[in-house]
């Protein structure tokens, strides 16, 4: 058995809702169409802007990650977006058959469909463009993690040579020195978070 696209669906019901909410051309469908068109428009505008590399410094790793995220979101959401466009198109067609369709909405969904096709093309092109940079950053992150591991080992070894390990340092002094260690560990934690974020974004989450 093969499921229909989008299945399983979820519907909810309220005693307070008016009976005409259940009508094929009732207020629930009117709202569904207008909010659906709006959501699609926002997604396309925002993602097109985010996925562009023009006027951006994609050598900067944070910018590169941001562009990559937008590009990947297009690929990840393509099926859902196409389904949404198809459902809206069919809903609008049904409204037109009932003589209550709005021409501007019909034009809008056609335009959005074209715009999404352009966005998919853009995402494909940008993915190709940033692939060498992503690969370079991935290798860089891998090296940085290795370096971090080594730093951590050295730090741990050197930690044992510190004053607070010595009896002669005294309790008060040892405590003061230990508070400095806390700051140093915080820096390591921050680096772990940063490297972990980059490793995840460059498809190597287990590395860290």
């Amino acid at each position, binding site marked *: 058995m093969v499921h*229909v696209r989008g299945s399983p669906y979820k519907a909810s019901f309220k*005693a307070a809702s008016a009976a005409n909410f259940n009508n094929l051309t009732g207020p629930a469908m009117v709202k569904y169409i207008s909010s659906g068109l709006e959501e699609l428009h926002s997604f396309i505008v925002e993602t097109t802007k985010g996925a562009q590399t023009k006027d951006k410094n994609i050598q900067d790793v944070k910018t590169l990650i941001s562009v990559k995220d937008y590009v990947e979101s297009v690929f990840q959401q393509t099926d859902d977006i196409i389904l949404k466009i198809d459902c809206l198109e069919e809903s609008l067609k049904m409204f037109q058959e009932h003589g209550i369709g709005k021409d501007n909405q019909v034009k809008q969904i056609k335009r959005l469909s074209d715009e999404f096709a352009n966005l998919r093309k853009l995402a494909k092109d940008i993915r190709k463009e940033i692939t060498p940079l992503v690969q370079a950053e991935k290798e860089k992150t891998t090296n940085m993690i290795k370096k971090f591991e080594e730093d951590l080992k050295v730090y741990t070894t050197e930690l044992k040579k510190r004053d607070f390990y010595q009896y002669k340092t005294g309790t008060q002094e040892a405590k003061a020195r230990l508070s400095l260690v806390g700051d140093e560990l915080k820096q390591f934690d921050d680096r772990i978070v940063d490297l972990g974020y980059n490793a995840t974004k460059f498809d190597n989450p287990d590395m860290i």
Partner: protein
Amino acid sequence: MLFGGWSNGWLNDFYSLNVSKITGPPYAVTDIVPALGQLSGNVPVTIKGVGFKDANIKVIFTCGKTPVDAPSKMSIEVTGTFVSETEVTCFTPNYEAFGPKDAIVQLSIQGGDLTTTWCPFTYFMNTRAYKSLAYGPGLLGEGSVGHPTEFIIQARNELGENRKSGRDNFQVRILKVGDNSEIPNTLLDKDNGSYSVKYEVPEE
């Protein structure tokens, strides 16, 4: 057959003319139900006509719009099952070799001639669930309790085109979240590629 002579003298010649291609065999087809089916075939169809016999029945599906005198390379043959003198059933052959096109249906019984009458049959691309979709208030939030609601299933083929005829089999199950109890529904085949599903939620 023709023979004759003149003035008490026979000409000793004898002529025959095979008119079976014109008059046809003693059986004929008049209708096929349904007159359309999916490309993958295996659709049970009933062929109506006259003079059918409980013998070796071959049903011929020929690609195109013109009947043939004999099966050609554009024809696919399937075995027919005798039901009555006016009814034969068979399963449509797979037509993927020809694509979604029109076909002409004729039959022959016990190796006899093909019928001179024929029925058109249209092959369409199979419905694909993963290309089909559903929409309507019955799939949205904030529906009204205690009133019937509805949603539409729009069947589509491999190319994502809306189907234009019915007879697809959709299984619809509506379950209440929590106890997973089933809410009854009715599915109406609109015979235009869309199916209306109605159900009612009795309580919030």
